[in-house]
């Protein structure tokens, strides 16, 4: 019986998030370390995301038509802190779940250590940047005010 690439790989090589060996989808459950955490994270965040995302899609496209999801629609929803928390959790889990997936796709397809390091670093920077952008909006949004932080860039009068 053929062993998987993961099982054939020495343990040391398997636990680093950057030098994970390419397995082309044939990986079995990782032995430990960050990869094992990532394996569980995908599945747990995935199950939670199923509910968060589907409800989000229903609210934005089925119960209301997308043309109605205007500024005032958001303002009304965000008066209730529940929706801010909901959207925050949705954004955080979706970003981490997705970027972790991107990390694995890169691991599987980029062989050179240098380029892989560059790509992984870019993912981390992206994760931080987009997460903070989303968080800033969700937490500080106040209708009628053009966002405080935007004034820093002199973009608003």
């Amino acid at each position: 019986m053929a062993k998987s690439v993961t099982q054939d790989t020495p343990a040391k090589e398997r636990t680093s998030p950057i030098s994970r060996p390419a397995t082309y989808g044939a990986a079995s459950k990782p032995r430990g370390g960050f990869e094992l955490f990532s394996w569980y994270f995908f599945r747990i965040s995935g199950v939670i995301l199923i509910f968060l995302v589907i409800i989000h899609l229903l609210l934005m496209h089925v119960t209301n038509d997308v043309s109605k999801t205007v500024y005032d629609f958001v303002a009304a929803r965000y008066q209730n802190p529940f929706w801010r928390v909901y959207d925050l959790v949705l954004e955080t889990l979706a970003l981490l779940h997705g970027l972790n997936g991107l990390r694995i796709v890169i691991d599987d397809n980029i062989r050179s250590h240098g380029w892989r390091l560059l790509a992984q670093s870019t993912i981390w920077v992206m994760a931080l940047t987009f997460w903070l952008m989303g968080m800033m909006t969700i937490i500080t949004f106040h209708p009628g005010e053009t966002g405080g932080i935007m004034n820093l860039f002199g973009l608003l009068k």
Partner: protein
Amino acid sequence: MYRGQSGMFSWWFHRISGLGILLFLLLHIVDITLLGFGPTVYNDVISIFSTWYIRIATLFLVAAVLYHAYNGVRIILVDFWPKGGVKYQRAMFYSVLVATVASWVPFAVYIVAPIFGGCLQSGGCQ
């Protein structure tokens, strides 16, 4: 080494749909940030979502999300159901395809109806 013929396609499409959803998410975070620019700017950009071509694009997004979700459940079952998981993985894959299409159709009807002047939502469209 793949588990069965359907295994390769299901895995590959799981990745493609995931990457597609991620790409959309990054754009979506950017467009929502426009809330900070006030109602005029925000509403102008959001109105793009109501155009017929973006509605069609939304159909692809919804299909990707549904497939990725159902196939994800299938992956979890294969991982945590030692005997049945691997044995039934092909049957589960066909169920995933059927479930994806079946739950996609109602979404599609709601999203596409306004292109033809119809509107299924009680709150109105446009």
